[in-house]
């Protein structure tokens, strides 16, 4: 409650869309991220899509940093940019994806997809702006997402889900190996 009151007071102090330095940085990086994401889903070159995805995910990592969640930002860079995109590139190569522009990257469903996406965007943005236009995040004070803080809460309060997640990862690992290994001749 106290936080909410404080935030409301801060919002009153700062007013609507009163740009601070962090906000301007956030906005610019956000634009880059969004643009990269849009290019990712629209480009006709498959490998380019993967590379633009790197830009978008990296931009998100910067946004995490601006939101003082530094550990998550590094994890984002490590896992997504480092491994997921590499995996995707491997996948593209293994499925013999064409290098260069391919004419049929979009399916016939494209107009419908566009309509649904725009409608969803309009609805979500409207609702979100309507709900949070005066809400203020106080980024001053102690850093909330430092490695120390995150490590401490993760291994103090979230140990059990963390261990369960490791089992899930192991299962996924085994599943992926079983699915993707080549069958020997005569084996079904």
């Amino acid at each position: 409650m106290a936080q909410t009151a404080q935030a409301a007071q801060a919002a009153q102090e700062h007013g609507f869309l009163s740009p601070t330095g962090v906000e301007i940085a956030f906005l610019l990086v956000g634009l880059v991220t969004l643009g990269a994401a849009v290019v990712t889903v629209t480009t006709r070159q498959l490998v380019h899509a993967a590379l633009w995805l790197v830009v978008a995910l990296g931009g998100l990592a910067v946004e995490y940093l601006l939101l003082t969640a530094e550990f998550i930002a590094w994890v984002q860079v490590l896992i997504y940019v480092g491994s997921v995109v590499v995996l995707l590139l491997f996948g593209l190569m293994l499925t013999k994806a064409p290098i260069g522009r391919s004419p049929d990257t979009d399916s016939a469903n494209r107009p419908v997809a566009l309509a649904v996406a725009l409608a969803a965007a309009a609805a979500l943005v409207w609702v979100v702006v309507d709900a949070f236009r005066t809400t203020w995040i106080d980024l001053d004070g102690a850093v909330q997402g430092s490695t120390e803080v995150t490590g401490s809460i993760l291994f103090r309060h979230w140990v059990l889900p963390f261990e369960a997640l490791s089992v899930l990862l192991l299962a996924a690992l085994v599943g992926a190996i079983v699915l993707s290994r080549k069958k020997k001749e005569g084996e079904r």
Partner: protein
Amino acid sequence: MTTTTLAVLVPLLPFLGAAAGLLLGRTAPGFVRPLAVLPTLAAAVLAVLVAVRQGGGKAIDAATQLTPTGSVPIDLALHVDGFAALVAVLVGVVATCVQVYSTGYLREDPRYPSYAALVSLFTAAMLLVVYSGDLMVLLVGWEVMGICSYFLVGHYWETPEARSASLKAFLVTKLGDVPFLIGLFALAVDAGTFRITGVLGAVATGGLDHPTPIALLLLAGVAGKSAQFPLHTWLPDAMAGPTPVSALIHAATMVAAGIYFTARLLPVFAASAAAMTVLAVMAAITMVGSALAALAQDDIKRVLAYSTIGQLGYMAGALAVGDRGAAVFHLLSHAAFKALLFLAAGAVIHAAGTNSLTAMSRMSGLARRVPDAYWTTTVALLALAAIPPFAGFFSKEAVLVAAEHTALGDRTVAPAGAGWTVLVAGLLTALLTAAYALRLWLRAFRGRGAEAPDHGRQPIAMTSVLWVLAVPSLGFGLTVRHLPDWFDGHDLAPTLVTTVLGTGLAVAGAAVTYAVWRTLAVRALTAPAAAAVPTPHVAHPDADAGLVEAEALHLPHPAEDPADPGRALLGPLHRPAADGFHLDAAYRAAFVRPVRAAASLVRFLDREVVDTYVRGAAGSAKGLGWLVRRAQTGNVQTYLSALLAGSVVLAIAAVALANAVAGA
């Protein structure tokens, strides 16, 4: 044993015999014949014993109530008066004769066990009707007879004639039974009881509110059962059954039930002058029409069937003039000679190998082949033609005397118009009866042509029964002085006027027939071409009598024989009379065709209208399914698009609704 116990045993014994016969028919064929004959014989003996003990005195009444049955109680009641006692004796004796005769007649029939059991059941049902003192219990016997007649007439169900005849018999009698049932209910509501004594008591004290509708409704049932115009058409067709069954139906059971029922409840009918007039007109039309039809028939059994209808007309006429003594008297004597005629006809058909009178008239010496049948038929035909001193003379005179008394106003039970109707029709019928009786005798036994085939002696079981029945046909009339003690008490003896009129007309009819026959026979001799036509014959003339008859049903009847005296006598009336005055065709046009048209209309409505809705329901479901199938493209992205679009629409709707609620 008390008389009541004996009387209860009389219907019970044939019933138990029927049940045992049906149960043991397949497993123990040796018991079938004793089980068929002995219970019926015992019932006949017990019926005689009951009659002797009752002696025409006060009626025996006994009743027991099994369970309360609501507003109008139904009792297991017994009511044995003089009528019941004598009719029961008649039923027992004729049924015994039929059972004995059947052992010879259907000796090798594979369905004999069920046949014998059904005959026993038939007998039991008739005895129940005769002895019952409660109208509901009487109705049970009445309906059991209906179903038994259906099965027995359809005994040769392999032939289409028998199948349709059994159906017709069942349906036509049921057509009368529906109003009969309603009439019984109306009567019970008016009288407050189903007991016959109670009903008669209510009538005597003027307790009936609606006598005319009740009497007319009951008359419909009586007309159906007793084959009176216009519901008589089933009886000639019922000849498709075996001959003993015809004898049983025509003499002792079924047709007698209607007359007997009317006799029992005569005060109810007499309470309505309209009902008596209707009954008289019905009887008159039946008598004259059936006598004309009998004169034109070629099938020997159909001649006898129409003659039965005519004699039942006499009984109905006697009831129409309010004399139930005369009616039951004629019922008794008619039963004796008509049973004899049928059983003898069975023997004749067996010997001749055909049931066609024309075919018989082209063989000589048939009388020598079946001397017992010949002599007993002669006696029975004389009784039928009411020649003194045979039984039929006395009973028919009793009817005519009653009619004459009513017509002249000496009796006031019935309107004088009814008396005149019955008297004139009765005298006319007497003339015609003698004519067709003589025609039957001449055509069957005085034929000229090839020698009749010799199949050896008839079984003793068949011939002995004929002589047993010949005795009452010959001498029953002599009891006329004692019968009034058993009946209502008034005299049944013939009077001079009716004797002279009736006998004179009968003799005149016979004489004219004989003269015509002689003339035609001489003419036929001079033109022998007609005799050269080969007569159709059954395939197995030496087989069992029942089989011969079943095969004779198939035989085509020869073309019109110019030597037939009936044809010459009837002139232009011959063809309609041979067809039963086209009554069946009239019924076909009046009832069958509209019903069929209605059925086809219903069929059309069902097929084209109702089914359209059904087909439309199926078609619309199929079309909707087709539309939904179009949506199944197999493309996951399409499904997902639809899913997410739906989610967006729902979300927007929810937000808009929340805003609207918040704004309001």
